[in-house]
């Protein structure tokens, strides 16, 4: 479960404040207990000191002869201390001679006249005070008569109930105080955490705005503490980001400029190469046709080689020019209806010598003939795919060509497929071969020729048709596909 920092902060502050108040309450309670206890003990001592002789004398003098006088003295003394519970006079054998509490209740003769209190029995001969009893303080005072004889001890019992009463008062008070403190601590915790999370909210809002691209965001927190530091660090960061982005943008512009320059350079070069090529191809062709006089076989053969190489040069220069043009200006299409079967046939005718050499068998499955697309462009694509297919075929294999209509997501596509048997293409390179100047490995260009622009050009053209071009390769069988939306006029 996700818990906001604010809630956690409120919780933490609340617990801290509550702990402090509870601690204070417990301390106050303990302190009060100690205070009350020592007050009771002090009072009791004083009372014992003041009354023991008087009571002892009265016992010896009046207990057996004038009991009412003895009782009057006892009661008079009893009135002086509110904690007093009982006064007993016990002889040294432990026999209780007088028990005020029993006597006042009207019990004159107890069933067991001996004290059962172990503390009393143990300490009857000594001056002793026992405050260990839970709710009860017991003080034993030996009484020595005028002849110095110690026959009796006076045992005082004081109540300690006042302590628990006092404690309950204190507890009640601290609960009342605690409740109000609880309320106060909630309020304080909320205020404090609002103050903290308020600043955090400012920072987090600014971070979001920056993430959405507003890098000019500056946050202001003037608290003179860590939050101000945070705000400053944050502003420093955005400033750095702004700088980096400026630099990146400059770099991108520079790269774009250089790329355009490069492409422009390519375009210029290809244009410049075109004129010598035109003149060369023209004259070679003219010579070959014996328009400038008859030729012997050797001369014809040599001209044939020159002618073939010029044609190859022409193709590459054309590709370069096409790529640079597509890069600079994009692909311009002019749609028309044409027979793709004728186009395929024409291209295949150009490759008859190569196909004969490799003894390739072409298997055509043309289910769709008429296509509405850019004829020039599609022709270039077919030329590239077919020439690739032938170039990369092993001898004595089949070259399969298929056209059909497919349906994808309620959209009709015209699809072309060519598959050949040959070296195949590694899985991880199936995408890269459509990049300009890419060849599966450097040696392929030497073995198969070409500078690797054909597929890149084909992709440009197919994508301009809102279509897709791709390759699949498995077990030496490589298939190239393209599909373009099947438009109607």
């Amino acid at each position, binding site marked *: 479960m996700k818990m906001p920092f604010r809630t956690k902060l409120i919780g933490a502050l609340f617990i801290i404040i509550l702990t402090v108040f509870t601690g204070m309450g417990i301390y106050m309670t303990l302190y009060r207990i100690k205070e009350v206890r020592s007050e009771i003990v002090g009072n009791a001592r004083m009372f014992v000191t003041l009354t023991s002789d008087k009571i002892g004398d009265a016992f010896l003098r009046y207990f057996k002869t004038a009991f009412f006088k003895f009782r009057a003295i006892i009661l008079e003394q009893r009135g002086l201390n509110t904690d007093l519970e009982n006064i007993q006079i016990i002889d040294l054998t432990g026999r209780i001679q007088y028990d005020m509490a029993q006597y006042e209740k009207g019990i004159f003769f107890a069933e067991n006249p001996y004290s059962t209190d172990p503390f009393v029995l143990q300490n009857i001969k000594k001056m002793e005070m026992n405050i260990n009893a839970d709710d009860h303080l017991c003080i034993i005072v030996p009484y020595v008569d005028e002849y110095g004889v110690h026959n009796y001890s006076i045992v005082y019992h004081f109540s300690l109930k006042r302590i628990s009463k006092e404690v309950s008062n204190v507890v009640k008070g601290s609960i009342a105080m605690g409740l109000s403190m609880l309320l106060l601590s909630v309020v304080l915790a909320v205020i404090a955490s609002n103050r903290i999370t308020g600043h955090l909210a400012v920072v987090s809002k600014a971070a979001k705005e920056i993430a959405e691209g507003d890098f000019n965001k500056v946050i202001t927190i003037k608290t003179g503490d860590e939050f101000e530091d945070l705000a400053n660090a944050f502003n420093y960061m955005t400033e750095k980001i702004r700088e980096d982005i400026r630099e990146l943008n400059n770099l991108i512009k520079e790269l774009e400029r250089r790329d355009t320059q490069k492409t422009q350079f390519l375009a210029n070069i290809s244009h410049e190469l075109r004129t010598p090529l035109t003149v060369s191809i023209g004259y070679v062709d003219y010579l070959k*046709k014996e328009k400038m006089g008859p030729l012997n076989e050797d001369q014809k053969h040599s001209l044939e080689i020159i002618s073939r190489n010029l044609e190859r040069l022409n193709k590459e220069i054309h590709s370069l020019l096409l790529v640079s043009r597509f890069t600079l200006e994009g692909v311009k299409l002019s749609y028309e209806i044409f027979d793709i079967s004728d186009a395929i046939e024409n291209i295949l005718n150009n490759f008859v010598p190569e196909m004969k050499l490799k003894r390739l068998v072409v298997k055509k499955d043309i289910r769709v003939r008429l296509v509405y697309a850019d004829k020039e462009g599609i022709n270039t694509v077919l030329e590239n795919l077919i020439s690739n297919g032938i170039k990369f075929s092993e001898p004595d294999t089949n070259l399969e060509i298929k056209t059909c209509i497919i349906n994808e997501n309620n959209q009709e596509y015209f699809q072309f497929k060519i598959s050949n048997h040959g070296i195949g293409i590694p899985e991880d390179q199936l995408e890269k071969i459509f990049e300009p100047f890419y060849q599966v490995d450097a040696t392929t260009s030497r073995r198969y020729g070409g500078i690797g622009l054909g597929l890149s050009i084909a992709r440009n053209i197919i994508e301009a048709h809102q279509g897709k071009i791709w390759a699949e390769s498995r077990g030496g069988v490589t298939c190239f596909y393209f599909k373009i939306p099947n438009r109607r006029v």
Partner: protein
Amino acid sequence: MNKNILVIDDEEDILEFVERVLRDEGYNVFKAKDAKQGLAILQSEKIDLILLDIMLPEIDGWQFMQMLKSEERLKKIPVAMLTARVDAYDKIIGLKEGAVDYICKPFTADQLLKRINDIFYYIEKNNL
């Protein structure tokens, strides 16, 4: 009567090649290295077809064509553009501007002659 063809191209070698091919076929060929020379020839000769390179110094092929169109005497003369195959993407502009055809560089003698024959055939058939 032999047809008069004006070829405008800034490349001497191309001019010479085209001249040779056309002359061998029986056309009268006039050569111009730029638009100015071309206009000068047009003033003095009756030209049946202009072969026009697009990339010319100072006044390019498109501008030259506009100049032709603005002159009553010259605007009926058919123009075929000489252009790189890639520039065939410009063919729509070319045909809109009034060129009747375009011939892709590099071209062989046969291709050139066939195009020219086609153009004259088309013009005669349509009585232009």
